[in-house]
């Protein structure tokens, strides 16, 4: 694999690295808020991946302009799908934070090892 190919496809590599980092953070960090941040990193990497899939070289944003009717547009569908993904990510974050607040009231800490044991 030569350097050219890697440079050409670097959004995919970044997406995979971010995804792995996010998953690692969710699974290993003891702090619950950091776990939620990990989930956000993970979802953001997926958004990046989708938008990289929709991109094409030399494309312009898909806004219809009467002056250039034959312009090469990038694929707008993944971006639109990711808008839904952002909403989902937002609601998951809000719900998780609400639960963390309740747990903080019960335990007085947001550190997981004190209570999140495997049973």
């Amino acid at each position, binding site marked *: 694999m030569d350097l050219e190919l890697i440079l050409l496809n670097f959004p995919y590599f970044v997406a995979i690295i971010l995804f792995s980092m996010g998953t690692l953070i969710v699974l290993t960090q003891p702090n619950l808020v950091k776990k939620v941040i990990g989930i956000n990193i*993970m979802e953001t990497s997926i958004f990046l991946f989708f938008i990289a899939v929709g991109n094409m070289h030399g494309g312009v944003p898909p806004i219809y302009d009467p002056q250039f009717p034959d312009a090469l547009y990038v694929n707008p569908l993944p971006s639109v799908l990711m808008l839904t993904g952002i909403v989902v990510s937002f609601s998951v974050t809000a719900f998780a934070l609400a639960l963390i607040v309740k747990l903080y009231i019960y335990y007085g800490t947001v550190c997981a090892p004190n209570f999140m044991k495997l049973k």
Partner: protein
Amino acid sequence: MDRVDLDTIKMLPFYCVIIPLIASFCMPVLARWKKEYCAPFTTAVTAAVFIITIIIGNHVIKGRAISYAVSGWRPPWGIEILVDPLSAVMMMLIAGISLCIMVYSFAAVKYELERIVSGWYYTAFLLCFSGMIGLVVSNDLFNMYVLIEITGISACALVAAKGTRLSTEAALKYLLLATVGSGFILFGIGFIYMITGHLNITFIAIELAQVRDQYPILIWTTLSFFVVGFGVKAALFPLHLWLPDAHSSAPSPSSAILSSLVVKVYIIAFVKILLIAFGLEIFHETFIRHLIIVLAVIAMLAGSFFAFVQIELKRRLAYSTVAQIGYVFLGIGLGTPWGLAAGMLHIVVHAFMKTCLFLCAGAIAYQTGRKKVNEFTGLGYLMPFTMGAFTISAFSMVGIPLFGGFISKYGLALGSLEADLPLLILVIILSGLLNATYYFPMIGQAYFSQDGDSNHGEHGSNEAQKKFKRDEIPLSMLIPIVVVALGVIYLGIFPGTILKFINQTVAVLL
């Protein structure tokens, strides 16, 4: 009467998704206005959807799958709803079981939840319901992802509704792991979109068959992402960590709906993606089949072992779910007509059995406050209807003939013979025996135990206890338990009614 307008019937599956969704949006306002109307309204919506699903099932069984393009956008671009016989039977199952659980939760919600959250509870219930039905009928991958998230988040809300320390903790654990799972699923969908440029499953199947040889590694990656994602969601054994906590600490209607339906619809979605989108050739060429069989065998044995050592009743039932999920995945992994049909049948049977068991556990806790597996003494006489239903379901779980569980296990054994893996029959029998080791002691203690509560009473009271009394739970809790238990017996004696649906789909898939 057979002159049904085709367009009306095409819209019906769509209404099944939309009506609960609209009702769930109405629910918070209704809860703020008149709290006592929430439960009847939810029941009415669920019953209406159940009637619609029966009409759909009657239509689909004649061999005409329903395909509907939502809002008029044609399939390659728009969202398509496709109801094949398997989806139809799953819709009927979801609506029917939800109706039973809903009737049960009239009294149970008042007993187990605080009054202030009951309106939100029904909101989450309806959202979960509509998400599940949508997941079963949808034929579009991204739409499937959105519905997975709706189902997952509202299922977490159903767990967290109890508001105790344990249930909040379990809900957070469920939410974090489920989000990781759906992240994997979304990444897999991204890979599929990258390979084929489509999101509709039918078009993906056509496109993937052509370009399959160009992307061998990418298809492997995609499949592994889907297995991990749906494995977390459906609690396949090494990824089941969220399940026991979530099921045991939730209110009992929630644990029934989680265990019997929510976990299963993900399996249906997985089957759709695996067998329709990827197709049989990829299924047989890659080693995904062997991976699923190995994981399923581990799940069947380890889930039963874990269930054996639990003390708390609902926890034992939850680990039993892990084992039963193994059966379903085993049926998928076998990939033969009998195996797949038995796996799908086991989804139906297990939905009935596990609903009945969880509702019985809730009823026992309601009347006597007992939550441990070694406190069943005299329950057979104290609450005969509940314990009768419990016994029926436990027998079915073990796989005794005349009960539903026997048919699906027999089918799995036939399927493993078809797939030339006769050793699996040994595993199925071993797992059934393990089931017996942890269900029979409870039943034996309930009916035949002698030690009883005689230590704080005179000698004669032990004899007085041996009289059948009527259960002291409300009628709205008793009727669903009895109905579901009768359903288990019906499935054991006449499995053909369901198999007729399933075999039609299996004949198309394989």
